[in-house]
């Protein structure tokens, strides 16, 4: 069994490699599509550069080589974790991104936990009280949050909870210059985290609620439910021990699929709340015209999506033993 699972992991990894390669190639093409190259940027930074010097630099960076050779060199560099150099920050892109990965992961993990947890709960409530006021309320709530732009939700929450009520800070991840340590620091970060995490999770919350409701209703019509009822199992036990467990499966799948869009959402939320993660870095690089950095973030987030999808597939095989590993 363990061996089969390992083989499955390796096969899924092997399938992910062509996709990753395709993404790297897209990245390279985008880089080429952009007006100006790294040497133009360097020359621009230096203020003045002679054409001879620029030609020399191009030779040094391999920019005078034919396109396929450049692509091969680019793939080689990416393979060893070299994502280029950010001239704005005067730092390697990979290092910059790693520094900012932590805050984004905190935000994303909190958001997923919140959205999946509360979504399952609300979906369950809606499905058990079908067509009651509870169901209608939850459906309306899901519809509205599905239609609301993230950035606007964030701003409105700031108006209500930060400006008017003063409950939460408006931006940042920590109180600046407070130099808190230990649990004080954790508490401080959690306090800053509330509004961004709630904003980002609202949209997904709606999604999981609707999915959970539909999934519960679908499972409730299955034969095994009739069987359980015929055996005399109580309705409560049917709902919680039989239907609920099976209804969770599609929600888990969806949580994996949504990671890709969650990363996009975090760009917006981090910009609105000044959360110092990858999304804000992407926003900054956009305005500094720091294309190397933006492409690095793009590549890393695509790799992250691949990784999470793999993880979800594995989780799925554990939740549902019927799934064939072959």
């Amino acid at each position, binding site marked *: 069994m363990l061996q089969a699972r390992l083989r499955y992991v390796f096969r899924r990894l092997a399938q992910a490699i062509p996709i990753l390669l395709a993404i790297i190639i897209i990245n390279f093409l985008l880089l080429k599509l952009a007006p100006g190259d790294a040497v133009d940027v360097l020359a621009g930074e230096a203020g003045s550069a002679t054409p001879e010097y620029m030609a020399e630099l191009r030779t040094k960076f391999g920019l005078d080589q034919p396109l396929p050779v450049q692509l091969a060199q680019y793939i080689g560099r990416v393979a060893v974790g070299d994502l280029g150099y950010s001239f704005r920050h005067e730092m390697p892109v990979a290092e910059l991104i790693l520094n900012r990965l932590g805050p984004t992961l905190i935000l994303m993990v909190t958001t997923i936990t919140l959205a999946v947890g509360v979504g399952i709960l609300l979906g369950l409530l809606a499905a058990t009280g079908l067509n009651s006021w509870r169901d209608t309320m939850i459906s309306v709530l899901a*519809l509205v949050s599905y239609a609301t732009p993230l950035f606007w939700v964030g701003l*409105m929450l700031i108006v209500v909870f930060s400006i008017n009520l003063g409950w939460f800070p408006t931006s940042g991840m920590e109180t600046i210059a407070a130099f808190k340590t230990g649990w004080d620091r954790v508490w401080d970060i959690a306090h800053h985290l509330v509004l961004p995490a709630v904003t980002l999770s609202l949209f997904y919350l709606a999604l999981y609620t609707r999915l959970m409701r539909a999934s519960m209703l679908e499972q409730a019509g299955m034969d095994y439910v009739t069987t359980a009822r015929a055996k005399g199992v109580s309705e409560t036990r049917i709902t919680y021990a039989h239907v609920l467990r099976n209804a969770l499966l599609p929600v888990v799948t969806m949580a994996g699929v949504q990671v890709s*869009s969650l*990363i996009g959402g975090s760009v917006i939320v981090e910009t609105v709340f000044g959360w110092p993660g990858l999304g804000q870095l992407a926003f900054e690089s956009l305005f500094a015209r720091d294309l190397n950095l933006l492409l690095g973030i793009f590549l890393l987030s*695509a790799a992250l999506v691949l990784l999470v999808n793999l993880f979800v597939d594995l989780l799925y095989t554990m939740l549902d033993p019927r799934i064939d590993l072959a």
Partner: protein
Amino acid sequence: MTDAPLTLGETPSALDRARAFWRLFLRNRSAVAGLVFLGLVILLAAVAPLIYPESPFRLAGRPMTPPFGPDYFLGTDTLGRDIMAGIAHGARTSLLIGVIATLVAVVFGTVMGALAGYYGGWIDDLLMRVTEVFQTIPSFIFAILLVAILTPSIQNVIIAIAVVSWPALARLVRGEVLSMKNREFVQANVIMGMSDARIILVQILPNCLSPIIVAGSLLVATAILIESALSFLGLGDPNVMSWGFQVGAGRTVLRRAWWICTFPGIAIMLTVLAINLVGEGLNDALNPRLRERTG
């Protein structure tokens, strides 16, 4: 379907079918409400140049005039631009970009999906791998990158939104075509020697129209949300007023002038909500079997 009695052997005319569809649609009250609101937004977009003939970027009055005053119904922004004029002109931008980007995505996605589903084999493998790559890429960051590289303009925003929107449609159409291509009526045409292009266009696609229309209508809503987010980040066409831009412009004065961000945001929310409701209504009316199962 007892409310549309048909005698055997008589095929319903297009008019009859349209009537039956309309009756089903009208049964869904929230969809009708969505349609009415959407109609109002379209009307607003149509008459915007008449009621606000001057540029929405024009400095109309004192900066940050509060809303519900005598001159400016929704107040003015940081530079004194009339917010209501901006919303009226922004409606044009949102609808235009939403509809055109969706059309481009639907056409492209349908072509890809139909080719993959009809021919199968290596064509299917190749096209579905490509689709998978595009579905793996975080779409919003991809859209940001595309607009940043191509420079912000209406045309490039439309391209970026279409590029990130087509994969879902390609998958949908592929599935539909797969389920159609072995049906007797399609096989009959193959035997008759009809060309592949004609079979796909004339025989298969018209039968997959319902799910494509429903998915397309929901895609318009998503496109409007992506457009507003792009222009909020400052990646919209700088010469065109849009709702996302308005919200972005009011961000810095949130503490003193809440209305600048609030009203354009409500406009986005209600429009997207209306489109989603209409989309669900279309779904119910076009796939009556589905509705009976879930309802």
